[in-house]
């Protein structure tokens, strides 16, 4: 099933590339629905697994925690735990659960903060952050603290990158390197603050969290 998920992502990227190169008038429309469709293979593969109640719980609890954290810490500007929680979810419970945690917390947090054309992109971006974190940790790449922090920074930056892309692709034509680069540069301050808040959260908790979640996995009898 993981193949289908990768295929979905690759097709989404190719649709975006084709639209940009051919200067298609309906780019905004096509890539919006392409993003919605790209989520579906992930959802289907999760449905196919027919999770038991205890398998569902980590995703549910971590998503709820991510959204509640966004609400609870609204006052602390540099403490946005969403991305960090998604990364930890992927590392502790595998790529599929990581994706679901990211995608569902994106969807649900927008139930509170308002849905928009960004919803599918957020779902995809956070989903992929969890998914890749899961794969990297399966390959034993995310072990050392510095590798986890590096991933946190890269993930936050690419989150912003993905979110900016729809605006640029959909509403700026024709594209040339100048306006692409300057658009992304404009987004940099936001992305850096996001990366900082992710690391600020990861720094003190990742170790204890991974430890706690390992215990939960044993207690819940999850593989």
């Amino acid at each position, binding site marked *: 099933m993981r193949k289908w998920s990768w295929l979905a992502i690759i097709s989404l990227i190719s649709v975006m590339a084709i639209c940009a190169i051919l200067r298609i008038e309906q780019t905004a429309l096509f890539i919006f629905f392409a993003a919605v469709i790209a989520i579906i293979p992930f959802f289907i593969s999760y449905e196919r697994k027919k999770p038991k109640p205890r398998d569902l719980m980590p995703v549910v609890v971590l998503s709820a925690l991510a959204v509640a954290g966004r609400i609870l810490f609204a006052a602390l500007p540099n403490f946005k735990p969403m991305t960090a929680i998604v990364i930890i979810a992927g590392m502790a419970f595998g790529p599929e659960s990581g994706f679901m945690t990211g995608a569902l917390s994106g969807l649900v947090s927008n139930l509170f903060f308002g849905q928009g054309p960004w919803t599918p992109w957020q779902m995809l971006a956070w989903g992929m952050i969890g998914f890749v974190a899961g794969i990297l940790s399966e390959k034993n790449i995310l072990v050392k603290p510095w590798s986890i922090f590096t991933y946190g920074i890269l993930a936050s930056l690419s989150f912003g990158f993905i979110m900016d892309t729809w605006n640029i692709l959909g509403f700026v034509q024709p594209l040339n390197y100048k306006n692409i680069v300057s658009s992304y540069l404009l987004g940099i301050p936001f992305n850096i603050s996001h990366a900082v808040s992710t690391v600020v959260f990861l720094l003190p908790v990742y170790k204890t969290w991974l*430890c*706690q979640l390992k*215990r939960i996995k044993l*207690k819940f009898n999850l593989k």
Partner: protein
Amino acid sequence: MNKQQTLVEFLNFSFTYPTSEGLPALQKISLKIKTGNLTVLCGMNGSGKTTLLRHLKPELSPAGEITGDLIFADRLYQKKDENNRQKIAYVMQNPSNQIIMDSVWHELAFGLENQGLKTEEIERRIAEISIFFGIETWIDKKVAELSGGEKQILNLASNMILQPDLLVLDEPTAQLDPIARRDFLQMLFYVHSETGISIVISEHNLNDLLENADHVLFLDKGKLDFTGSANGLTDYLFNNDHPYKAVLPIATQAGYLVDQVQRTESSNTMPLSIKQGRDLLNRTFSHQSAVTDIDHKNIIAEDKNGNSDNDTKILTADRIWYRYSPEDDLVLKEASFNLYENEIFAVMGGNGSGKSTLLYLLSRALKPLKGQIKSTVQKRIAMLGQNPEAVFAQDTVLQVLTEFKQRFTNTDREISDMIDLFDLRDILQRHPYDISGGEKQKLALAKVLLIKPDILLLDEPFKSLDVIYKQKIKQILSELKAKMSIVIVTHDVDAIAEIADRCAMIFNRRIIAEAPTQDFFQKNSYFTTTTYRLTRDIIPGCIVFNDLQQKLINLTSGE
């Protein structure tokens, strides 16, 4: 009566958890659960009640080694029959945790969705169950808007909607306040009498329950020590002088006391409710009221003397106001009281009356909107909230205890003494979430005491404790009084009356009726201890059971 069918039968049933080194959790249990009965399962924490109940619901049965037989009636449960699974319903302790869905109607529909019923059938069932339980008015609500009591009623309804033949409840009222508990039990008895469903319920508070029980089981250390009627159980406990007898309703205990004092072989059945108890006391003591009246005055005079000894104020709350956010109503308005040195001060009041808020304000976790909280000298204040889980951030019990070792300069000796005081030695290496509710409470209390506070604030310290634990905590608190002042906020009137020096109520956002414990409870006729309600005009001046015991012994020796 003998035509009742057997629904479940345990035959020489033993069960051992894989982790417990061969020590069985249940030993040679033999019992029958009959149709239409309300069976009450009682026993102390850790006696195996939950383990036994979980075996009644095969989906939830713990893994482990089983010997003996467990036989379910065909109509109740067949292993191969997927459709017949929901004939056994299971209600657990925590009202919120067992709710699955976000809205009331969705929660009611959840089990029916699993059965794959048709839409029309689901709608009909939701409609009839809502009307039966009187919950139509909140069917459209989100679950988060419900109170704890309402949530537990919803849990009962969402189980009953599956039309089970057997309803199993594992301490369903342990997390509820007394009013919500009463409503829940009334609903349960109503369900029982209207539907004739078989019910097995475990509880650590037997008030209101024994008088409605058809069948009582008493489990002690994994063995079924007693099966029979409610009166049979009371006889069994008293004849064997079992420590668990303290859990019996006050009226029942009074009944035995009367028997003991009168030295008569009682032919009566023992009272199980206040009304029955009062009838008995009336019959026995109506002619002796004059004698007891004098006694009563003496006690009050003594008490006042006792209190005037220490009146060093240690903390004053002066006309404090509080609200959680500008849009909310005031929780406290012009609330004032004094706390004296070396006393236990108890604050009681209904749900949401602001009791916990008061404690948070005293602890300085919240700041009052108006008014002041002054402590005379620089005093160290520590608070323990309702849920001990909220203070556990470590992986073992020992780490929880040693967390503030440096900060509050705890010596190894102090920690070791604390471990012994609270009997935590055996569980030091366990994870704080894997120990029982009573142990969690004790651990949290030990942790807070290691802060060495001058003022200790406790929010519902008796919640979900069985008699033995409760007794222990009461004793520890009474001893601690010598070193500190304690403010306790609680619903448990009977327990607090035994240890508090002064009491007050929170009502209408203020602290009212501040008075010495004796006075406080004697002035109230509804919001007062069970003993006082039982003896009020018959043997005046009895606030706690000990008072009654003393009185009766004096009475008989005086004659």
